[in-house]
């Protein structure tokens, strides 16, 4: 790739007053089509099986959606069996919100999470939460902005709820003990997200997610929720009528499976960043491997927008070990400029994320990027912002300053090098206003659900969404517990998918869900032998070879 090497580009860079915007010469639609990764040639395929048969889907996602299960009935022989009213899968913001809310209703709640409670994308969220509270703003504007940013492809009923619930959600969070930035009179401060028509994001420094997650996690720990950490779900269970009836957990600490029978299941398993679609780095948490989509799809749930992902424009591109890690959009809200290697401003920074990301990719593709050892990027002109608003970084973006220090790049003195990073799954499981999927007994909330953001999400709508629908799903689930208990709870639904795959002659050696990114090498970890189909298959193979040879 052509471009200017890092050191050379840095020596050219100068702190300067606002720069003029270069003419784009490309209409937004064309820019997206030519440069946004969603439109990359050969990146999508048609799904061959399941509820979305015939739909376009990202190739890597299609692979796991059409994978075979990691387990069969035999794996469940003699394992621990637990029962609960509501099973929440996922320990991030959505999962915790749902668990707290369901527990408040007095039903039995169990929460299973892949890693530690609270290890999630939520904890990493920096920007804030959207809520139309400023006099210059209305829920209608929030609604309109969200729809427009999503290219008018969102589910309008969901967006309406989202926009109307913002203020109530902020209140709920404060009553959980979450702090927000306020002015000297105690009014909430807001910032304007890219693509919005009014300042609408409330926040806490650049630690909004951390603050929120700390508080929600503490709330969960303080109510009657049974928490199962280090227990990724490998498959959901169904009953004879096709209802979702629980899940199979792999208990990593014990290296054994656990069966949980539940009257209602709330899936809040998050996104897909760690699938590194199109080889992009990601700002996502280690556990974001799209498991929830696989689980729901196998049970027959309808998904949507499987070819649309958000690439956040300001992922770090230097130093290399921090590649993909996020610089909050709050910095753009504060007025920072984005410059190419030549020092030109080439995009309106506060445009929607997909637009800015595509513009950056274009600069780099056309040779106006800054080259590093491992990649390429453009400048985020932080020193000029510091010059214009002295002290702003220390005051409002302490996390960024701290991270900069770690990479020996002080954003107040040296511009940060950025490149889009895989950030969010725009689509997901189709849900109704109560978070119900198309499968009875299965609710989906948070990033795993789809329909709210269309094909592009606004900053601050994710944290909002997960509380709005986390609470709604929990209330609805708790109020509608199926009276009849558990009849013939099994993995039977797997057979349907297996039949379809086999008839099509699909390769069924790949097992899903992925659970962990490839580089963590989970499937070769002897510590998890009993959860590990590859190790077990290997051992079986060795036994068979031995039998054959004797």
């Amino acid at each position, binding site marked *: 790739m052509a471009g200017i090497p890092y050191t050379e580009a840095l020596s050219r860079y100068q702190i300067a007053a606002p720069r003029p915007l270069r003419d784009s010469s490309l209409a937004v639609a064309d820019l997206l089509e030519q440069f946004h990764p969603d439109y990359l040639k050969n990146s999508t395929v048609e799904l061959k099986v399941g509820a979305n048969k015939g739909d376009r889907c990202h190739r890597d996602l299609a692979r796991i959606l059409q994978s075979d299960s990691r387990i069969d009935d035999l794996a469940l022989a003699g394992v621990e069996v637990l029962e609960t009213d509501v099973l929440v899968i996922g320990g991030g913001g959505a999962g915790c919100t749902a668990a707290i809310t369901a527990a408040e209703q007095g039903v039995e709640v169990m929460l299973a999470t892949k890693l530690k409670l609270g290890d999630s994308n939520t904890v990493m969220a920096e920007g804030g939460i959207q809520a139309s509270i400023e006099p210059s703003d209305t829920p209608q504007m929030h609604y309109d902005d969200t729809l427009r940013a999503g290219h008018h492809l969102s589910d309008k009923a969901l967006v309406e709820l989202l926009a109307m619930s913002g203020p109530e959600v902020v209140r709920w969070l404060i009553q959980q003990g979450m702090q927000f930035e306020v002015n000297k009179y105690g009014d909430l401060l807001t910032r304007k997200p890219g693509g919005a028509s009014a300042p609408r994001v409330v926040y806490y420094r650049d630690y909004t997610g951390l603050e929120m997650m700390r508080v929600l996690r503490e709330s969960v720990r303080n109510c009657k929720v049974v928490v199962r950490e*280090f227990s990724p779900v490998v498959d959901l269970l169904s009953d004879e009528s096709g209802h979702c009836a629980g899940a199979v957990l792999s208990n990593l600490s014990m290296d054994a499976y656990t069966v949980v029978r539940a009257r209602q299941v709330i899936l809040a398993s998050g996104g897909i960043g760690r699938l590194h679609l199109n080889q992009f780095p990601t700002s996502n948490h280690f556990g974001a491997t799209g498991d929830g989509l696989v689980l729901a799809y196998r049970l027959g749930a309808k998904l949507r927008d499987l070819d649309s992902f958000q690439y956040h424009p300001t992922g770090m591109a230097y130093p290399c070990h921090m590649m993909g890690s996020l610089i909050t959009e709050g910095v753009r809200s504060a007025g920072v400029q984005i410059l190419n290697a030549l020092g030109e401003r080439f995009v309106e920074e506060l445009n929607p994320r997909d637009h800015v990301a595509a513009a950056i990719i274009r600069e780099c593709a056309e040779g106006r990027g800054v080259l590093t050892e491992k990649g390429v990027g453009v400048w985020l002109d932080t020193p000029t912002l510091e010059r214009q608003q002295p002290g702003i970084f220390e005051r409002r973006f302490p996390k960024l300053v701290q991270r900069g220090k770690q990479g020996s790049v002080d954003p107040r003195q040296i511009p940060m090098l950025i490149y889009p990073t895989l950030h969010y799954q725009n689509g997901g499981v189709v849900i109704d206003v109560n978070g119900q999927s198309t499968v009875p007994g299965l609710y989906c909330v948070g990033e795993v659900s789809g329909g709210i953001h269309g094909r592009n999400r606004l900053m601050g709508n994710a944290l909002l969404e997960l509380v709005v629908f986390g609470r709604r799903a929990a209330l609805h689930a708790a109020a509608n517990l199926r009276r009849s208990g558990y009849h013939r709870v099994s993995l039977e639904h797997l057979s349907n998918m297996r039949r379809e795959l086999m008839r099509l002659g699909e390769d069924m050696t790949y097992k899903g869900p992925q659970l962990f990114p490839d580089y*963590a090498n989970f499937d070769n970890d002897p510590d998890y032998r009993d959860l590990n189909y590859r190790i077990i298959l290997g051992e079986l193979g060795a036994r068979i070879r031995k039998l054959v040879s004797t």
Partner: protein
Amino acid sequence: MVKKMVSAKINGHAVTAPDSMNIIQAYWHAGFPRISGVGCLEGVCGSCRVMVRRVDSGKVTAELACQTMIEEGMQVQFLSFQTPKQHTYRLADFKNSWDVQSQFFDIFPEVSHCRHCGGCDVVCPKDIDVENGVGLAAMGRFREAGELFVECVMCNLCKSGCPEQIAPNQVGLFARRVTAYFHIRPSNLINRLEAIRRGEFRITR
């Protein structure tokens, strides 16, 4: 930029990796499986606690693996322990903000036993003034105490390192939560809620 390879020992395994990697990346790079004790990879989830001993140093420090670059001769051990037992309380049970201080000691009785060893300050990977924060909370200065814990990632290292079983991180969080619960009353938010309640806002699709 020249990559320098370094050798280190992680969880007892010899590892060779470029010095531009953090501990987790280096461990993966060397081909070892690692899933527990890995989280956000950005230093905010508090999962990747490690003990680190650097070459020629008698000192063993506690750090976050994703935030610590691999160095020549470094010895590392991941500390993946279960979350220690929690102190439980419900904000809704505080009927009156005047009572918070007295209830604080019912919830965290150990706080008054602090022996001021300073271990929590040393162990904190975020350099939080932990002991001071606990002291402020004990004096009922919750807002001030909470401010010190802004960057706390709840890694529980201070808790596991406290000889009096105080949970300093939880004390800090308590201080922050009661501050929000009783003192954040933004008029712009309240006005908007009231207007919505009165039905002044409707969405036209």
